């Protein structure tokens, strides 16, 4: 049973914009998939639908074999909390909170017992190499470090899937490389399914498969021949 299964997914906004015009594909557990496409192609809309953040207007979408439409609003929130982790291009950290508190955030909405939380957060922060920054406010960190905090936050609940929406878009190439190293490790060493949105071919080639979207339609789906792997120095 595929983890994600989409058939003829369409998304039409109230203003008439037809962002997705019938997309079908599936993603297995443990896959690393890049979704590429030019600006306005519908790739972000697709990610939002896959990440239970947005609804679709036609077609069928199954997650773990269950129709999206059959999830109640509370179950949707629970899936986002327990099974999905999000990494955004603009980090989306709470600027007035410390690194520790930012990473703790998903645990506040989870069933993880109080006494296990601290250790879980520390271990997530350690895995992205930021143990020395725990008590720093997120506003005091560099862009690369902020994105590493966002990654720690995404993986603190040990989700099945990690969504990364242009994770290197706001970073210099060196910091971007570190971020991709970590994301690769998460897939390779921890078997997290990774769905990466990018418009850079260079970044997309960390995945084993690239799905290209254009004008709301699936243009092509190809396996990456010379797949890049990270340095393997982050996640243990």
């Amino acid at each position, binding site marked *: 049973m595929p983890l994600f299964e989409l058939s003829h997914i369409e998304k039409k906004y109230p203003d008439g914009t037809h962002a997705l015009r019938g997309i079908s594909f599936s993603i297995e557990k443990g896959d690393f998939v890049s979704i590429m496409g030019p600006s306005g192609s519908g790739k972000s809309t697709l990610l*939002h639908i896959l*990440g239970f*953040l*947005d609804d679709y207007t036609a077609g069928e979408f199954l997650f773990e074999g269950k129709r999206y439409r059959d999830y109640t*609003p*509370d179950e949707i*929130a*629970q899936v*986002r*909390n*327990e099974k999905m*982790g*999000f990494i*955004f291009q603009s980090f*989306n950290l*709470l600027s*007035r*909170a410390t690194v520790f*508190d930012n990473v703790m*955030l*998903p645990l*506040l*909405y*989870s069933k993880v017992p109080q006494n296990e939380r601290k250790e879980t957060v520390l271990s997530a922060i350690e895995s992205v190499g930021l143990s020395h920054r725990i008590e720093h406010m997120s506003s005091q960190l560099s862009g690369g470090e902020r994105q590493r905090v966002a990654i720690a*936050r995404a993986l603190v*609940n040990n989700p099945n899937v990690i969504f990364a929406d242009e994770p290197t878009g706001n970073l210099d190439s060196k910091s971007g490389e570190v971020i991709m190293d970590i994301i690769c490790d998460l897939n390779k060493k921890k078997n997290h399914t990774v769905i990466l949105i990018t418009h850079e071919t260079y970044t997309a080639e960390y995945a084993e498969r690239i799905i290209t979207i254009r004008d709301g339609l699936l243009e092509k789906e190809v396996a990456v021949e010379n797949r890049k792997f990270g340095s393997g120095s982050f996640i243990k």
Partner: protein
Amino acid sequence: MKLQDSLKTSIRGLQSNISRSLLTILGIVIGITAIILMMSMGKGAENLILNEIAGLGAETVVIRPGKEPSGPTDLGDTLFATSLKSRDLDALRKKSNVPHLITASPVLLVPGTVSFEGETYRATVMGGEAEFFANSFNIFPDRGALFGELEIRQNASVAVIGDKVATELFGLSDPLGEFIRVKDRKFRIVGIFPATGQVAFLNFDEMVIIPYTTAQQYLLGIDYFHEIITKADSPESVARTVQDIEATLREVHGIEDPEDDDFYVATQQGIVDQVQTILGALTVFLSSVVAIGLVVGGIGVMNIMLVSVTERTREIGLRKAIGATNKDILFQFLFEAVILTAIGGVIGIVLGASLSYILSIVISIGFGLNWGFVFPIFGAVLGIGMSTLVGLIFGIYPARKASLKSPIEALRYE
């Protein structure tokens, strides 16, 4: 999300912008401060007045001319009523009419000042029976003596004066036997009360007591009394005495229907009830004014919360993306509003009580009144309750607005 986590999240949210949080609750702080101050001062005033009334003695019964005033507009009728005269006093003093009455004394108030050789003082000049005042309040002259029945019958120009009147007019010299002037008439000082301060609304230190007959004939030119103060032989016989007084006066005045009474009788309990009714009504009135203030404060909280929700749209989007339900967001913002207003309530209570305490000291020292500080426990509970309720009511709209935001639109918000 557990309640404990919701509370922690809300507190963190408030801590992240402390100065704005404090400004938000300013309206609530002022409102609750006003409630506590008002209730504390009201209770202090009530205690003071009740203590003064208690000084009258439970067996005191006061008869006033005119109809009993039921509102401020009736006061004029009472002030200018002329229905209590000597015949009433004579009738009341007949044992067969009012058997439980032990004493009855008329009282007249003489407006104006007293003077001695160019020194003038605004004293309280009362026409009455000096012995009645002295016996009722157990205050007797330490120099000279009281005037008696003879001086009253003869319309004598004699006076017993209070300690402050003596000091103000005579300084260190002895006033006994000297003549003071009241409304162009000279009065010989026959007695001086020792310093006693305020007793049952009367400040003996500022009093000049002259025979009521003299006050009527020479100073006021009237043949009626401003009131007649009587005493029953025991507190238990007060009710019976009131009935007898009413029956006697109706007979003298030829009144058959009590509705037509041209006098009214006030007992200590009656005065206590009246004072409590007036203060109660005043407190309710002022409380409603303050309640309006609290609503305005609540609207202020709602406005700032709405601004806060808009400012933190991305945070709301993020929280939803990582698993917060609508309910979690609703509670987070609702708790923020409630915590804010409850803190406002606590600050208001502390501030109100402190101000009231300071004022009680100022009043006690400045006005020489026996004004005690009262912490209004009911007011404090009401203050906390009302401020929390204001937070709950005015926090719901912004919190609901926050909870219904779509995560995607919230995350895209610039």
